[in-house]
């Protein structure tokens, strides 16, 4: 739940599209990264964003969270224009999103617990110290870290733990919108699968909308409701994976029907079969 910054009343904005990107153009020097890119993210979905290296997935995320000034176009987050605001201007959306950067981007001079407290202190300075500590501990546990990680410094954590700590910080304010930049890259398969599961559970329990950049086909099959494909400086397709498979764009076909794509498909099918059998078994046990 978030407070509306103007009226102060608690309101859950049930707009259909929390993120609306229209006609986005990003240029670096004379290299155009995005050309008239349009993307709408639906309320309550996990949107996977895929694309080859250098197609501007991270740039798109940075544009949406206001770190990258686009050359043209408009980006609305919860109906507030990001593109019209100054870089550090408070427009009432920063307390409603959480961002997990690729390397975690934890503040290196603070412990994990203090990292989680930073956004809380920033937006709600009147929270009591002991409550802050409780919230930090809870969020750290929620993100799947052991409790003793709370008072560790980022330098003492492994790459995977840093990502979890970054997730704990991103979830500190119970955001409605979560940005994840390659959350499972560099994690071992078990850790990656747990992270996927965690993301899915969070989405289901907290009703999050998730903007997820990934290269991980398992993640796409496992948890994404829709997938947006970046290529040719635009979003060339958005849809569920079966919908994407029905298109005949060569990159999409190669991406999902390559050897790795097929492996992920197969494992997904296996999962579903297993789920179906266990469901039918439990049905059999009914009196």
């Amino acid at each position, binding site marked *: 739940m978030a407070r509306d910054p103007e009226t102060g009343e608690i309101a859950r904005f049930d707009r259909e599209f929390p993120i609306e990107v229209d006609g986005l153009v990003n240029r670096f020097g004379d290299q155009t990264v995005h050309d008239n890119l349009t993307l709408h993210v639906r309320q309550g979905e996990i949107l996977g964003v895929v694309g080859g290296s250098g197609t501007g997935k991270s740039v798109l995320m*940075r544009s949406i*969270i*206001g*770190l990258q000034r686009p050359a043209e176009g408009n980006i609305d987050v919860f109906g507030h224009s990001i593109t019209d605001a100054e*870089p*550090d201007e*408070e427009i009432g959306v*920063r*307390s409603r*999103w959480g*961002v997990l*950067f*690729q*390397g975690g*981007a*934890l*503040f*290196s001079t603070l412990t994990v617990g203090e990292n989680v407290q*930073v*956004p809380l202190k*920033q*937006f709600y*300075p009147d929270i009591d110290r002991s409550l802050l500590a409780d919230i930090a501990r809870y969020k750290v546990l929620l993100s799947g870290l052991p409790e003793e990680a709370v008072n560790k410094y980022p330098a003492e954590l492994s790459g995977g733990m840093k990502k979890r700590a970054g997730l704990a*910080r991103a979830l500190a304010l119970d955001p409605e919108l979560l940005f994840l930049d390659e959350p499972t890259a560099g994690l071992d398969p078990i850790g990656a699968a747990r992270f996927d599961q965690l993301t899915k559970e969070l989405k289901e329990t907290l009703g999050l909308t998730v903007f997820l950049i990934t290269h991980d086909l398992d993640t796409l099959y496992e948890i994404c409701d829709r997938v947006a494909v970046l290529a040719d400086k635009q979003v060339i397709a958005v849809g569920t994976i079966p919908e994407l498979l029905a298109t005949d764009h060569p990159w999409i076909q190669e991406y999902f029907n390559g050897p790795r794509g097929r492996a992920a498909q197969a494992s997904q099918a296996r999962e579903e079969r297993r789920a179906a059998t266990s469901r039918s078994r439990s049905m059999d046990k009914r009196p």
Partner: protein
Amino acid sequence: MSDGAEYRIETDAADGSDDNAGRLVLSGPYLVSTVGRTERELRKLDADISAVDLSEVDHIDTVGAWVACQIAARHDAEITGASEQAQRLLGAVETAGNEAEIRPERHPVWERVPEHVGDLMRQLFFGIIGVIGFLGQILVAAGAIIRHPSRFRAKAFVRQLELVGVSALPIVGLMSFLIGIVIAQQGAAQLQQFGAESLTVNLVGRITLRELGVLMTAIMVAGRSGSAFAAQIGTMKLTEEIDAMRTIGISPIEALVIPRILASTFMMVLLGFYASIMAIIGGAVVADVSLGIPFLTFLERVKDVVPTYDLWVGLIKAPVFGLIVGMAGCYNGMQVQGDSEQVGRRTTQAVVSAIFMVIVLDAFFAVFFTEIGWG
């Protein structure tokens, strides 16, 4: 047979054809370790060749296959006698051929020099604009903090005061003490020639309070803290910590830059004064030991011969120098983007530009204060 890659040309005169195109027979190992010299000769080969025969090649790798492919392509010849392994390698390198240079093309020097100069001018121009923009950001952030004092990061400020000031006390003190000794000792040696060694007091007292105390401290702080500012902030930029701050709604200028600049400005005054005092003590020690002026008498004399405005000159310059050192460090840190090499370059630049600006301004101050009668 030698262990290098060999070649020979066989002309099949026996079949009686008119063209004297020959077969190039390659033999020996065609590997990256052996092919170097042969390849240079093959490149210059000027004979007509209709076929490249690989049947006598006993080992081949991708480089050898590449060489064979190239020579075949150049002479429009076909490749014969390739073993199964050679066939596979040939197939692999054939598809990889292209003419792209592995480094960007180098322009001739008369184009490169003006281009480089132009590039430097452009950088200078954008650098000046960047500094002005940075100054504006700081003023805006300072204005915001004045309006909402609760946003001032007192904890970070105190921490920086400690890092810039308190922990610099030993090194700044020792340095100033030694400089005081050197000035007194060298000054006395010269003044003795006029029998004016008692003027050593004036020399040490005035030059340290007016110039050297603050100047040397500024240089030391630039090396100690200006570089640290640039490196810390630059690394935070690389690890996306600055971006993370922005997404949380924390202005990095308010949280990182303002406490550092304030700390260096404030601490510079105290450190500069402290350095002057240490230098005078150093001078007094030398005077006591080698000139026979008692320690306490030296200090008494300093009070008489040094005008108060000398102290003011030093104390007015100090915060300005501190501001420059802090700004140079933070500005260069915020400019880091891309890779870790930039952190090093920007750190160096922070120190160099800070020291340079401090000395330039010191010259202006010297003229200015003399003009207003504080000579």
